[in-house]
């Protein structure tokens, strides 16, 4: 089936065995995002750390209800951003957003995106793009809140540059 171009094995793997699922302590910000079309939801926590004077992603954990694409995408996102500086993670997030908005015409940067490149096929199905973005948008929002919050104060000088 053509649909297998979307449901790549790596996506189904992440769906069946999600990484970093289950909310963890400590965290600097928590957000709750909903896809109003289908009611899918994600609660996501971000913990930041200082990495040589720059804000970095110490941890991301989440709890989510949703379809295979939204679940797998959240799992892949955590793998992609944990351990990166916020600046690097935002670059990856930006590249993923661009890939999703490409309608399948982009040539994704595999070095930058890692497993997230598997979502290339999703971009051909406009109805599913919101599913793929749910976790990423929640992470972006939580990270912005963490940078603004008291926990991010110490990192603010570097965080504002991202």
């Amino acid at each position, binding site marked *: 089936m053509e*649909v297998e171009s979307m449901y790549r094995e790596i996506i189904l793997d992440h769906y069946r065995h999600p990484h970093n699922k289950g909310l963890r302590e400590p965290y600097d910000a928590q957000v709750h995002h909903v896809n109003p*079309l289908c009611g899918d939801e994600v609660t996501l926590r971000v913990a930041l750390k200082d990495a040589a004077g720059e804000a970095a992603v110490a941890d991301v954990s989440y709890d989510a209800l*949703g379809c*295979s694409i939204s679940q797998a995408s959240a799992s892949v996102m955590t793998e992609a951003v944990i351990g990166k500086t916020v600046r690097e993670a935002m670059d990856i997030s930006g590249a993923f957003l661009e890939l999703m908005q490409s309608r399948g015409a982009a040539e994704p940067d595999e070095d930058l995106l890692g497993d997230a490149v598997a979502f290339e096929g999703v971009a051909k199905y406009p109805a*599913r793009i919101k599913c793929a973005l749910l976790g990423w948008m929640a992470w972006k929002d939580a990270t912005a809140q963490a940078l603004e919050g008291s926990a991010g104060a110490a990192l603010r000088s570097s965080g504002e540059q991202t």
Partner: protein
Amino acid sequence: MTATSTPTGQAGPASAGARPFDVTAIRADFPILGRTVRGGRPLVYLDSGATSHKPRQVLDAERDFYTMHNSAAHRGAHLLGEEATDAYEGARARVAAFIGADPGEIVFTKSATEALNLVAYAMSNAATAGPQAQRFRVGPGDEVLVTEMEHHANLVPWQQLCQRTGATLRWFGVTRDGRLDLSRADDLVTDRTRLVAVTHQSNVTGTIPPVAQIAALARARGALVVADGAQSVPHRPVDVTALGADFLAFSAHKMLGPSGIGVLWGRRELLEAMPPFISGGSMIEVVRMEGSTFLPPPERFEAGVPAAAQAAGLAAACDYLDALGMENVAAHEEALTAHALDALGAIPGVRILGPLTTEQRGGAVSFTVDEVHPHDVGQVLDELGIAVRANHHCAWPLHRALGTAASTRATFYVYNTHDEVDALVEGVRQTQRFFS
């Protein structure tokens, strides 16, 4: 003139008069059913509950209006204006005949959603309208009663009305099998109840609530009754004189008609006393800089240039459906629904939401598949050319009450076949295999 449809069935299906319900002949009237979808597969359209397809008779009626009679109804001092007005008012009479109403009780809106909002906003506008609008006033201490089964279109406007006026929103719950729970009716319908809004057929479970019974309880307390007919009027005979309700809302696009036009039916004496919702041209009597007076209904509620082409299309849709016979339409859908309930219900891991028999149940079959999210079910079905809806179908509270976030929904109409039900069932099995 040709744009004005008549109740004689001239725009009816080509099959009319041959066999009572010849689905092959009916399908030939729907050009879109001839196209293919992903992978060159034939289209299996099971999403008529969201919007129905249009037969060429309806398309022709709209085209004929634009080709021959296009003009602003109720305005032009010329022949085309007269013809446009005839088409529009002819459509009003045609729709009235379709539901057993008087033409003066038919208000054209842009949608069923707008029709429901019209009543809700008229009620808050009643606070500052004259004494004749007393009946519509609600405020602190008053209650508006809805149900947990409603489409958001018949829920959110009442939430908003309560927010604007200080009235209290209350609701009937649903039972585990997706029926309306009337066990607390005596507690819910009281002298404080000013309005009851209830669906005439659930867009998720197909459940047909006892609207006449609820309306009798409500009217005994002096409450107004609004029925959401978006899923009933297209699918079975509806006669407003037997309905018991004071208002009925429905939309053209779900009943083979064009998008962009809906209907509010209201009892004449209520429409006469009701203040306007949207104001502007066409709805005024006299306008001075200091203020204006308004026309009687239905014009009072139809500000702006009327959607005459869409009205002509809706009239043709009424002709088409009446030529088939609404009893026959209902029987056809009941057979498809029974087939789907049996065959889907027999698949291990599939749970059907709502009633499991066709008793007091229309042709919407929503279901969940264990371990597979509705989006994923819908995606695989789409790959097979089967169009369904996969989310909460604008009835989020109902899904919550039935213990799920979302579902996959198949809905049936005049052009659907038993082979298409079989395709759906096989598609669901294939989905399970894919995700196992």
